[in-house]
């Protein structure tokens, strides 16, 4: 499709956007973490008197709720901190815990399960203020609110193909989005015959959608654009957009006639891309003050009748089956060895063997290591039914 790669005049190299990792990683003890926020990253709420009960018990710290991640840093030891990207959060809830110190008083805690690189991290942030009044207040509500907003605003940050973003021939505009120009007659060069469609250029993203099929579309935030170029193709000069690694690393080609219009658009896109790079908009609009007021108003109504809630209390159930047969033990031991080896070899998920179809169970399954059978793993204890016979 893009045979000739001769660079057109006037193509300056695009400024590389700072790679967005903040929402996609879990990091520990990064020096001065809480002082170095990314451009466009804003702290939406602070929650004080919080302890990281799993990692740094005893240290009082504060939680910072930004639009990309959750930061906790100790106010006692400068080097202890945590950064949890919203994209890595698997499950969150609040629970009542009984503090280790302070006379085992019940207090509220935020539980977060995060999964990063196939590793599960559990975090427990406990309110250590010791104020009983905070126990029943939704002190962590901003975390949930922002996390939900984050989930709902992926169009600001991620490439979306063939989404439901166009309705009745009109692009559905996001909040805070300003459309700068609309260009009709844009050919998408991703198929042989080409698809005729339109561009919509806004302050956040570039959208193309087919005239004939509005479900065939591309919503590409500037955040996911690695480079913009004009290249010669077999269809003539074409706008070529390379998406970032996190956006799939696709090469998208578009043709616009005449070339003057193409150039004009290219310049516009370049400058928007640069402006965006300086001041990215991650799409999360949240006012902690407003939210608090809203909550307070709602709580006032609900607080007329203080009530005991079962779900605030965690039931302790320590019955976990511990009996494991010999064969399974050795299997487990081997498994651990294998893991150690693979860690040494700096391997990750690519290294993992592909699952195979297991006829006995009727589902796809991880390959069982040689010398073992399904039954060995399953029959931990001899079944009583068999012994009776």
């Amino acid at each position, binding site marked *: 499709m893009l045979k000739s790669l001769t660079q057109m005049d006037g193509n300056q190299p695009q400024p590389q956007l700072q790679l967005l990792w903040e929402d996609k990683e879990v990091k520990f003890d990064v020096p001065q973490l809480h002082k170095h926020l990314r451009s466009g990253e804003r702290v939406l709420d602070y929650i004080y008197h919080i302890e990281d009960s799993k990692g740094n018990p005893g240290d009082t710290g504060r939680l910072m709720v930004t639009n990309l991640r959750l930061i906790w840093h100790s106010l006692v030891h400068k080097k202890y901190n945590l950064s949890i990207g919203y994209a890595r959060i698997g499950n969150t809830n609040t629970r009542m815990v009984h503090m280790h110190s302070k006379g085992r008083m019940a207090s509220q805690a935020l539980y977060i399960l995060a999964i990063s690189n196939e590793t599960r991290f559990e975090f427990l942030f406990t309110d250590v203020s010791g104020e009983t009044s905070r126990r029943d207040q939704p002190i962590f509500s901003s975390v949930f609110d922002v996390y939900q907003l984050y989930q709902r605003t992926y169009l600001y940050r991620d490439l979306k193909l063939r989404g439901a973003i166009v309705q009745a021939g009109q692009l559905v505009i996001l909040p805070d989005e300003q459309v700068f120009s609309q260009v009709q007659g844009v050919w998408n060069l991703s198929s042989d015959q080409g698809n005729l469609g339109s561009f919509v250029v806004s302050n956040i993203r570039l959208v193309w959608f087919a005239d004939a099929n509005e479900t065939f579309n591309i919503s590409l935030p500037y955040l996911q654009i690695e480079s913009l170029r004009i290249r010669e193709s077999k269809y003539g000069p074409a706008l070529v957009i390379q998406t970032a690694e996190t956006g*799939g690393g696709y090469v998208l080609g578009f043709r616009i006639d005449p070339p003057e219009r193409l150039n004009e658009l290219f310049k516009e896109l370049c400058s928007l891309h640069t402006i965006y790079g300086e001041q990215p908009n991650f799409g999360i609009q949240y006012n902690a003050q407003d939210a608090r007021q809203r909550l307070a108003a709602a709580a006032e109504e609900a607080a007329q009748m203080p009530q005991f809630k079962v779900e605030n209390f965690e039931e302790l159930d320590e019955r976990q089956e511990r009996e494991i047969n010999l064969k399974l033990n050795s299997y487990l031991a081997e498994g651990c060895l294998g893991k150690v080896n693979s860690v040494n070899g700096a391997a990750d998920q690519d290294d993992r063997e592909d699952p195979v179809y297991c006829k006995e169970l009727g589902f796809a399954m991880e390959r069982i290591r040689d010398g073992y059978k399904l039954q060995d793993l*399953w029959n*931990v204890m001899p079944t009583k039914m068999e012994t009776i016979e």
Partner: protein
Amino acid sequence: MSLFNVCSWWSAQCSDPGEEYDVASLLCARFGLEAQEKDYIIVGSQTGQLSIYYPHRRGYDATDLLLETQMVAPILGLYAGKFSGNVRNENANQLGVLLPNAIVIYNVLAIGGLAEHGAQLRLQLQAEHKFQRVAFGLCQGHFGQVKGREFFCVVHLDGTLTFYEQDGISYECRFPGYRALPAPVAYCERTDSFFRFSATWDLQCYSYQDLSHSLVTKSSYQPTWTQCVGEGIVDMRVVQVKENCSYIMILGERNFISLDDNGKFNFMLKLDYAPKCFHSFVVGYYWEPGARLITAIVSDSSKLHLYEEANIIWAAQWPRQSPAPVAIQRSNVQGLAGGIVTLGAKGQLEVGYLGADPFQFQVQPLNMEELSFAQAHKELQQLEDEIKEAVDVRDMDALNQQAADQVRLSFSIQPEACDDLDTLLLDVPADVAVKELPSAKGLLRCKIKAELAELQLAFQMPNGIRCSQDTLSFVDVAAGSSHEFKLDFYIAELLHVHSFKVELVASFVSPRGIPRVIQQSAHLPLSMFYRPCQPQKAAGIKLTYSITSRHVIPKLSTFFGEFLEEHSDAHALGLQLLCPGLEKQSEVITVVAAKNSNRIRIQSDYVETFAMILERIVERTLQLDSSAGLIKMEKKKPKKGVLNRCVERLMAAPFIPAQPILHRIDVHHETQQSIRKQTEQLEDLWQQFKSLQRQLQEQSEGEPKEALTMQIESNYDQLILEGDKLVEIRRDERKQRCDLNCAVALAKWIIHALNLEERVVNVVSSVLSVPIEDWTELSWEESMAPGIDMLHHFGPLTRSKSTSTHGLLDANASSKDSFDYSRFRRHFATLFDRIVRLASTPAAINTAEVTAQPAAEEKPPPQEQQLQQQVDEIGNMQRMLGDKGLPLAPPKRRTNMSSSLEAVEDDEEYDEDDLREDVGYRKDYGATDEEKNPANTKKRSEWVNEDFELPTTEELFSDLGIWW
């Protein structure tokens, strides 16, 4: 069995992250778009978002989403099949999207691209069928065993079915039965029949032939077979397992059930978890031997259970602990055969596979200090101490003291009644407000010295009295805070009040969860309930108390200061009850203090007037006496044979007005009976009402309805009438309960001051507890009967000596029988009788003697003789009580007894006969007393159990939970 992991192979978040997905939102299907096609995953949300995914490899790519579109209405279900005849491609399936008011059939068209992001999918509208009725679900299949085509029928919310057979042709049909609730319907191709789960928890099978015939002829038909499943179901699915057999797999709320297509139970497996969703399939081909039926069930706790038939063969856990999926499918996606496709309630779509590593709960190793044994031990000790401190109840006094220190209460009620009650503000009923009854003002101050998690203050008042503050509750009370409440106590119902005591119960829980309760009480002013009036000379019931305490002046002003002027020397006081204040009768009680002796007589015609007056006399005497501080009422467990210590301060003449009390019980019992009868009658009418309603429902449209409507109307009128009657009776019952309260309280206060063994007083007082309680299942009489029965047969009030076994048998027999009121009444009467006799024994003999030889020998020797006899008597009594080792009662008591004799001369102003007889109703029972000494002792031995060493008494009473 072990627990393994479910590993994630591919996952995506559907575009609507809200809780908008359910079991019908997920579909795995092929559309016949290309040669080597694998399964597409289609998701439709309740917000109308339709997404088609095609996973290419491990991990999610932006290109895995092929199409996303917003429908105009919520998506109720997604279906794929050969729904249309006009398609060129034989293999092509159409996509059916069920919306509330339409089913839309789309052809799915694919347009390939040069790159993956160039491919596009289009939905081409093939047909849209709109409904008049709202849809519930859809059932598809080769109805009538047609080849190459699939028909479908839509189940509507009103339970009707609409069949769509050829393009654009539709029929409507109803299942037989009157109430057709929407229920899942499944089709079985082998027998060409439909299974429907009815509202009565039955699985019903209808042949397609019957259904389709009924469409044409409108004839009625019956299910081919019906099988009761016995519980609600989560999902249902038909799987063909053999050439000649299909199974209906049903996931119930508690069981996993399988039936064959003839309605025979194949198996029923009780699940020990709450199931969320399931998927059944056959491994291999059903027409070949060796085909196996496998079922995957997802539990509420995110566990996947695999069963072969009913045997569990694998169990795995989703490690994310996220909420369990709401839908599960087995699918062959590109690069993964037999993938587990699951959809969460919030649109978390995942393709997973079974892991071969056992599930282990892995937590990152913590950088924690090494646990030191000494420190841990110390901490444990500390914890144990804390727990011990909280649960140790050996020293109750200290605990109560501590509790009272933590929450300091001062609760008082002003001794004067006031008249400025704001009846409007306090919402006093009009009939009470009109009487302008006096009210009382109270003040509650509480200072909280320790932090509390919860604090509750509750006031306990007799029926009819209300407090302006209901229960007060506080949460998270800070230490050092103090509260002050101004309270108004007022009469809110026109009932007889049995007590003027208000109890305040403060219960609180400390932040560590230690509960404590403290109690305080205060008394309402008597002037709230009585007003002075002219004393009455004669009355039906007369009671006498002798004030034996030296610290209490036996004058009326001591007890009823509020009704008398200061230093008044009045000897008679008439008091009239203000409430209920009926017009026909004025309930007056007269209190007379003897001029020259320490006796007080209370007389009235009405039982209800006594309770509060007696309470005042007894309480005031005890209070004055203990404030003088000479004798302390230690709270020791009373020993056997110890006499009632109350008698040292005041003693009641041994008389209980049993007849009026029993009369109150009779009235109360009758009302209870009539309530029961009335309830039964209402129940009958209600049954009639229901059956009439059902008849109306079941009547077909053509029939005339007039007769039925008339019946319903008259039934309804009657229902309302009888209901009103019941309300009226209940109101009466409440009044009678209060009257009975007063009567029982009266008996209680008399017994409280009787010359009896202290434990007898305690037992009887605890049996006669007020206020009495009626439950719907059990009236007060019924609940009292066993206790009274026990008192009758065991313990100090036993009649005969050889009771132990006989009594036990008797008690057993009576517990088996239904409640026998006459027996209860008899026992109650004898109970009073015996108490009176027991209490009057020493005095009675004396009286007998005095009356026998009064006029003849009026000189000192008899006095001495009397004294002699009294000593004998007391000796007798001690023997009677079976405690020979016990020291004789203090000599003071003896003189008291004799003084009760001398008192005969005092009250000449009032009815002398009465005084000689001591009290009114005695004659009815007093036959034995009239007789002479020898006979008397004989008789006495009959009814007084000389030997109290009954083996079982103590145990029995402690078993009964009566405070001994």
